[in-house]
């Protein structure tokens, strides 16, 4: 990681705080209108998708219905749910958009997400051993983590994780790696498992039982469409999230270098540990503006639609302090993610040998 003195870090903190304070002071009707528009769009897409689905015996309608419901889920998870749960809209004092009570359309419970994502991931971003989002305990993405033989096949794990992403995220807090090492016991995880079963059951009931049965004669078509919509959402959200921290230049950190760190150091870690991708307005919206992962990690509780507006200023701060601002096209960034998953499936030694040869 780039070395900065405490004085430089303090200056970095001041510079970033200035951007944050300016946005906070300007929050108001425009932001409320934006998120409400997104909620309306989500409701329309969800209703539209569900209504189209039973007519899926016509292939074009099947494709349209599945895509519509898939996009509805993406919009709800990414631009609404994720962002609302970060507290980006708490200031609106609207109980339906409040971070502590929001519950989203995915297997992971809002409570579990608030603990594992808002707290663990955003506090300990990219610290190997503390940020469990780094590789989700199934992928080895840095040499800081010792190689084990099963890592050789981790690309298969990556595909499976992406396909079943909502279940993976839902079970994230189970901490299977700690269960395996007997660091924690199943008994401790019982309350979590109950919550997981309740929410997972609810989601499965809705998409795989209730709506198919409701449209009984065409149940298999509706079931297939709903599976498809969930799959679309799973693949897209995992891809976006992987592009946020696992690109080539996204840095990782050790526990030692982050011990007792200042806010400035935390900012530095967020700037260097995250990566953006460029694209059109709707690509940003459908990624919940996580295409501005850098801005999101620096200011997780500012309304996400503001990130494009402040990006220029964040880049200017990075330039001023000589910090690399990690961005590129979606294809380029995703390419480096795939490379990284493959690269670290092999031990350091082997890569070194190949290089030498």
């Amino acid at each position: 990681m780039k070395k900065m003195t405490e004085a430089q870090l303090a200056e970095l903190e001041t510079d970033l705080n200035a951007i944050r304070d300016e946005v906070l002071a300007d929050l108001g009707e425009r932001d409320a209108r934006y998120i409400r528009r997104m909620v309306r769009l989500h409701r329309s897409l969800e209703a539209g998708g569900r209504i189209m689905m039973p007519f899926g015996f016509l292939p074009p309608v099947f494709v349209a219905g599945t895509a519509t419901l898939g996009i509805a889920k993406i919009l709800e998870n990414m631009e609404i749910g994720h962002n609302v749960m970060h507290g980006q809209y708490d200031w609106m004092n609207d109980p339906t958009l409040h971070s502590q009570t929001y519950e989203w359309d995915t297997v992971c419970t809002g409570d579990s997400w608030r603990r594992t994502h808002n707290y663990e991931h955003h506090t300990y971003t990219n610290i190997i051993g503390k940020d469990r989002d780094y590789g989700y305990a199934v992928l080895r993405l840095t040499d800081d983590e010792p190689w084990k033989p099963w890592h050789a096949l981790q690309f298969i794990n990556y595909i499976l994780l992406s396909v079943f992403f909502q279940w993976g995220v839902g079970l994230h807090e189970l901490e299977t790696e700690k269960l395996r090492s007997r660091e924690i016991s199943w008994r401790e995880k019982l309350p979590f498992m109950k919550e997981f079963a309740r929410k997972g059951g609810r989601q499965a009931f809705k998409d795989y039982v209730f709506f198919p049965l409701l449209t009984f004669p065409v149940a298999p078509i509706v079931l297939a469409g709903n599976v498809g919509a969930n799959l679309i959402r799973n693949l897209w959200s995992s891809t976006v999230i992987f592009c946020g921290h696992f690109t080539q230049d996204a840095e990782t950190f050790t526990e030692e270098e982050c011990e007792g760190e200042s806010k400035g150091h935390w900012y530095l870690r967020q700037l260097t540990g995250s990566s953006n991708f460029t694209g059109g307005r709707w690509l940003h919206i459908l990624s919940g503006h996580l295409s501005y992962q850098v801005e999101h990690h620096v200011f997780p509780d500012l309304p996400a639609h503001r990130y494009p507006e402040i990006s220029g200023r964040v880049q200017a701060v990075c330039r001023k302090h000589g910090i690399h601002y990690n961005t590129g096209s979606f294809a380029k960034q995703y390419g480096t993610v795939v490379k990284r998953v493959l690269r670290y499936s092999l031990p350091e030694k082997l890569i070194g040998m190949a290089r030498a040869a």
Partner: protein
Amino acid sequence: MLARHTQHKALQWLGRQLFNRNDPEAFFDPLLERINPMWVQEYTPARVERVLSETRDTKTLVLKPARRWSGFRAGQHVNICVEVDGIRRNRTFSLSSSPLLWQEQGRVTLTIKRLPGGLVTNWLHDHLQTGAVIGLGEAFGDFQIPEPAQPVLFIAGGSGITPVLSQLETMAALDYRAPVTLLYFVRTRDDVIAREKLLALEARYSALTLNIIATNESKEPRYLRDQDLDAVPGIKARQVYLCGPKGLMDLAQNLLYERGFADADIHSTLFSVPSADLGNETLGGEVQFEDSQLEVDSEGNATLLEIAEAAGLTPRHGCRMGICHQCSCRKTTGTVINRLTGKASGPGDETIQLCISVPRGPVSLDL
């Protein structure tokens, strides 16, 4: 009835499964609101039918709530909810109309005075238009006239007249058979709210004696005095109702105590944020917001809501005066003083209202 109840329960359960929320009926609100804001389910919508000017700084809103609203009894209050610059604001006002108007025409009125610096009252005065829809809560409060009839004395000041208007209308309609006197204190004669209505009531309802007193028209302010009470026939037997600024309420209370009135015969309603005499107690302390992993120091009688907001947090809140419980929050440890009553809480885990709780020593919150 039981069958309907079960059916409702089943639908609620299904709704929760499908929409992931405890109020599934409100899931499509964002769309419904666009089509017709009166279809919103999250709160009871109420359309502003008319805005009447009472005095230079007081307006009456004539509202038509959705029919599912449960109605009210004279003297009760409601929370209203409006959005000002993207932020939802809840405030409590007294209903100034009689419940009969609701029963007969489905209308209610709120009479609202512009408060200097008041964010919501000023917005209501300057921006609320006929045809707009605002949110209405269920009525609450027990500032109610005695049944069966007993002699009554109302002492009201300024916009504290609003719940009294509702009660007088109701009493006149019921032909409440006992002497009723209203001592109404206003700054100047121009500040009388609902003058026509009061005069009409006096003319139509013979049991009512009306005495309007201007406090600021002479050199010396003319406040409530003992003679005003002497002039009320059979004062000893009256049930007394107080509603107005704190100064008037305190003055009236003292005069009544001197006359040997018991607390049970004096009824007062919340009008502005009353604050108990917190005396010389040293208040404030370190507040720990556990979920936000934040610790801040506080001094004096700042409430937990104010402390949280000053620390950059945005807890859910409503009336900011201890009424609506929107800001209820778990306190895990520590003692807080209730700003309204001056009473200390227990030291342990309990639910408190942030907007009226002042820390006494260190306090930890699930926030």
